[in-house]
């Protein structure tokens, strides 16, 4: 494989991504849930089912079940960890920052700090047709927040 193409592929499918993909976190359904939504991309069959139980204004428990490609599954799993413990307004901000990372330029240092482990998904930018895979869990989250 040409070196650059191989490196890009290894960046996309890094160890963190594959680990989340093989061992998804928070995959049990949360019941009862205060926020919930289901997302589907009919073109490739990716699916995300999301439940959030709030305690006051904080995401106390997050459940996410995803089906489909590894980018979607890893993004969903990482999102569930990132949301847990965050307030509603912080969640809204995080979703904005994540979306900006995939659609725009590389995130700033402050944004990197907010995104934490999620920054491993910034390489998806180099694979434009896969951006929607990484965003499906997040658009499902936005649907859940919108009620």
């Amino acid at each position, binding site marked *: 494989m*040409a070196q*650059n*193409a191989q490196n890009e592929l290894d960046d996309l*499918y890094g*160890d963190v991504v594959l680990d989340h993909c093989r061992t998804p976190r928070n995959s049990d359904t949360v019941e009862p849930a205060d926020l919930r939504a289901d997302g589907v991309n009919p073109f490739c069959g990716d699916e995300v089912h999301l439940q959030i139980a709030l305690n006051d204004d904080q995401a106390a428990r997050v459940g996410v079940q995803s089906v*489909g*490609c590894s*980018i979607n599954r890893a993004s969903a799993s990482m999102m569930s960890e990132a949301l847990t413990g965050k307030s509603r307004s912080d969640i809204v901000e995080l979703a904005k920052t994540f979306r900006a990372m995939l659609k725009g330029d590389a995130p700033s240092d402050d944004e990197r700090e907010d995104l934490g482990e999620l920054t491993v998904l910034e390489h998806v930018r180099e*694979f434009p047709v896969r951006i929607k895979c990484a965003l499906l869990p997040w658009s499902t989250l936005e649907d859940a927040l919108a009620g």
Partner: protein
Amino acid sequence: MFDVNEIRKDFPILQREVYGKPLVYLDNAATSQKPRIVIQALTDYYEQYNSNVHRGVHALSMEATDKYEEARHKVAKFIGAPKAESVIWTRNTTESINLLAMTWGRDNILPGDEIVVTQMEHHSNHVPWQKVAQDQQAVLKVIPLTKEGTLDVSDIDSYITPKTKLVAFCHVSNSLGTINPVKMLTKKARAVGAKVLLDGAQSVPQMPVNVKELDCDFMAFSGHKMMAPTGIGGLYVKMDILEEMEPFMRGGEMVLEVWNDRATWNDLPMKFEAGTPNIADAIAMGAAVDYLSDLGMDNVRKHEAQLTEYALTEMQKIEEIDLLGPMDVDIRGGILPFHNSEIHPHDLGTFLDREAIAIRTGHHCTMPLMRAMGLVATARASLYVYNTEEEVDKLVSVLKDALRYFGDGAKRAKRTR
């Protein structure tokens, strides 16, 4: 038989590299590459005789008209249509089928009538008939499939009945590669007085197709899958039916005389070609037909069958993938869909792409078929005249790499090449 390496020289794009590697183009069922003479035909038209067709009294218009109608003759001959006027230019197969559904379909399918399609239809030969069935209070029936991905005709008489007005099906399935038994289905349709629409999008490019021998009433096909440019295709309609059909779109070119309150229609086929047509691409489709005719469609099919057999044999050796569709190349075109239950086709497709191998992943515009198979997406490699055994070897080898890469946690250790 032809020399594939000589043929490859006729396709400029096959010389290019992707990510620094030679392109391996295996997405031919989506669209084929174009030989130099097709590209040249476009350039010639625009550089030397670009002009509107019909009714022009000047030299360029007459030249353009001659070439445009000559292309229609070539295409008609290529598909065995008895008359050139029985071929209507359209944008592609989808437009051909919609034209038919909105004209013949609406005028001839009545409440209680039945339209029969199959479980393996492309959306373009399924969704237009859903609409006709809804609008006309007709019934849409779907012939199911066997496990091998062929039509299950064991109960065919309960699908094709005296109520059937139209049997619409693909000659070759774009998602499975299956070559359907056209003559048998046509005979069944004839026996109950139904008309037959053949979707030739995948068959016309890769095998000899003769509408007279197949005895279909309608056939839709696309230029871009048979080396012609995008934006040009055709609809064949049997003359006696075509003469009775109402126009599709109304406007210039399709009229004979116009008064304030009414109009009469031009001769066939112009009656169905309102507005300035796609002159350049039609002429280039004539060039594509010349190219394919020079190769000989028997030879094209022979190459396709041999390479498909080779690919099936090699791909069957990969334990981790399921090959879909019939394994007998006598009833299979050069379409190779495959599936791995653990690894999503998009991940496989991305991996192959980085090795400059172009395949397609997804539902291939056959969602009802995917649902029937319990899948949402597959990966699909599809072959054409310029593909080689070496390219199939490359596909198989990179596919094995991809399966190792995604298949277990020790991917880095295994990537030692």
